[in-house]
């Protein structure tokens, strides 16, 4: 008991400080223990895959260092180039389209309509289902040769193509599927629009700004950080599309490689042909492409993203 009441002297406090810090550290690392183990299983494989990228490896025999062979093979691999093209077109078309749709609908909903929560739910629901096998299968039949879409076109005397069996159109049906899931960014936009103070609009209206001018000069700049966030997120996600291509084509990436997303090709190479060295090379190429696009996004952001502070 006397220990507790004894007045603390200065040197003693200094001496106790590191002990307390150590105790805090120990507690924190205990809390972090699962995560710390998890991070080993993330950083480890990350490094290993870089090593495998320069090897010839088929899972059955140990990896054999092959230097830049994989890189050389990638340069000449027309199928890889096709898969990159599919992924680029898909990303560069579907991401802007779905973000534009999301923003447009969010603007209308934000104006305040009766039954807002019902509309929001109806628009949001598809984004939870869009990557499920059931929906991609459904899409395949909606757009099939005798599917609903062609039935509809038939009313106007138009014989549509077999959208999913024609290499010219197969990817566009998947782009439509992506646009169908605009609800997720829409909800984020709605939350962002709510943050914009009404007084800005009032001031703009007082200065005689038209609704379009208000949108351009008030809404867009103040919403730009959120648009940017959505853009980066959606692009990273859509570069990694797999299920849509796999299910639509039954795993082949067809017709005529028109839905062969990069990740699908990676899967075919790595797990179909067990060419895991080459697949690792592709994984790193994709990583660098995604990192590159993200970096460009961040650089471009300086010119159009506006931060209030």
């Amino acid at each position, binding site marked *: 008991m006397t220990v507790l009441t004894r007045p603390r002297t200065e040197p003693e406090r200094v001496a106790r400080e590191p002990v307390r810090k150590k105790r805090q550290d120990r507690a924190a690392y205990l809390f972090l223990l*699962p995560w710390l183990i998890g991070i080993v299983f993330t950083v480890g494989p990350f490094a290993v*895959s870089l090593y495998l990228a320069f090897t010839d490896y088929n899972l059955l025999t140990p990896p054999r260092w092959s230097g830049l062979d994989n890189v050389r093979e990638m340069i000449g691999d027309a199928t890889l180039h096709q898969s990159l093209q599919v992924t680029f077109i898909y990303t560069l078309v579907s991401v802007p389209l779905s973000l534009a749709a999301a923003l447009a*609908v969010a603007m209308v909903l934000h104006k305040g309509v009766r039954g807002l929560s019902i509309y929001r*739910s109806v628009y949001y629901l598809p984004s939870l289902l869009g990557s499920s*096998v059931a929906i991609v299968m459904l899409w395949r039949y909606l757009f099939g040769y005798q599917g609903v879409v062609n039935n509809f076109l038939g009313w106007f005397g138009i014989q549509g193509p077999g959208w999913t069996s024609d290499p010219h159109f197969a990817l566009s049906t998947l782009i439509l599927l992506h646009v169908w899931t605009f609800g997720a960014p829409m909800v984020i936009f709605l939350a962002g629009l709510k943050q914009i103070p009404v007084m800005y609009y009032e001031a703009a209206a007082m200065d005689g700004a038209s609704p379009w001018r208000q949108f351009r000069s008030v809404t867009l700049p103040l919403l730009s950080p959120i648009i940017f966030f959505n853009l980066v997120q959606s692009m990273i996600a859509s570069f990694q599309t797999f299920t849509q291509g796999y299910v639509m084509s039954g795993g082949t990436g067809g017709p005529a490689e028109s839905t062969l997303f990069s990740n699908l090709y990676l899967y075919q190479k790595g797990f179909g042909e067990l060419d895991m060295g080459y697949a690792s090379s592709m994984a790193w190429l994709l990583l660098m492409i995604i990192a590159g696009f993200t970096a460009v996004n961040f650089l471009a952001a300086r010119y159009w993203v506006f931060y209030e502070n």
Partner: protein
Amino acid sequence: MKISRHLALTAVGALMMYPLLWLVSSSLKPSNTVFTDEGLWPHSWAPGNYARGWTSLPESFEVYLTNSLIIVVLSILGNLMSCSLAAYAFARLRFTGRKLFFALMLGTMMLPAHVLVIPRYVLFDKLEWLNTYYPLLVPHFLATNGFYIFLMVQFMRSLPIELDDAARIDGCGPFRTFWKVIMPLCLPAFATTAIFTFIAVWNEFFEPLLYLTDPQLYTVPLALRQFMDSEGQSQWGEMFAMSFVSLAPVIGFFIAGQKYLVKGIATTGLR
């Protein structure tokens, strides 16, 4: 103006819902009229599609539903435990390397999963974990999804720090503070995490495809894919019936947990 806005919103909404309504309607039509009976209201009804679809795959459908359910429930549990522990450390404790670790965690959020796939597959193969649920479950118990940690960190930071101070003065160590003070207040964040985990894991296709080859272990998405393989027999009605069965839990969770979902994506951008 108001009416035209409602008309436009309703028209877009109807267009968005049409594929789902068509799916439900087709699941109730005889297979041979699915593509000829154009209306949403079936001319002839075939509710038997559900019974036949249930048993038309190598395993009865409840096997797949049970498999998916086991994986989903354990994944939710794993995410809640491991992510809340990590989030508490990041949000409330000061420790050496905190900034570095936090940056690392944010970095893993951006890291495309496909870069890790091959080494992880090799590792799971060496551990003889292929054709078990371990590759699908263990990562969730190791807080590998930074999004959920981030969500909980954001939430915990919004709680007043005085709570922790008061608990400390009352003699609580960090573990008791976490368990008795912070955890109960974080229930909304946990609900959001649980719902997102449910939907993500329920829909997950790539990982089960990779790690499960034994049909008895198949999850619902893998099971559905089998309908495509046996396409020649054109069991469309049955296929759409089971498709709807696979979507129903997600739709149900969505209706029940809307509040948490909308809040969750609004704060983290998770989808």
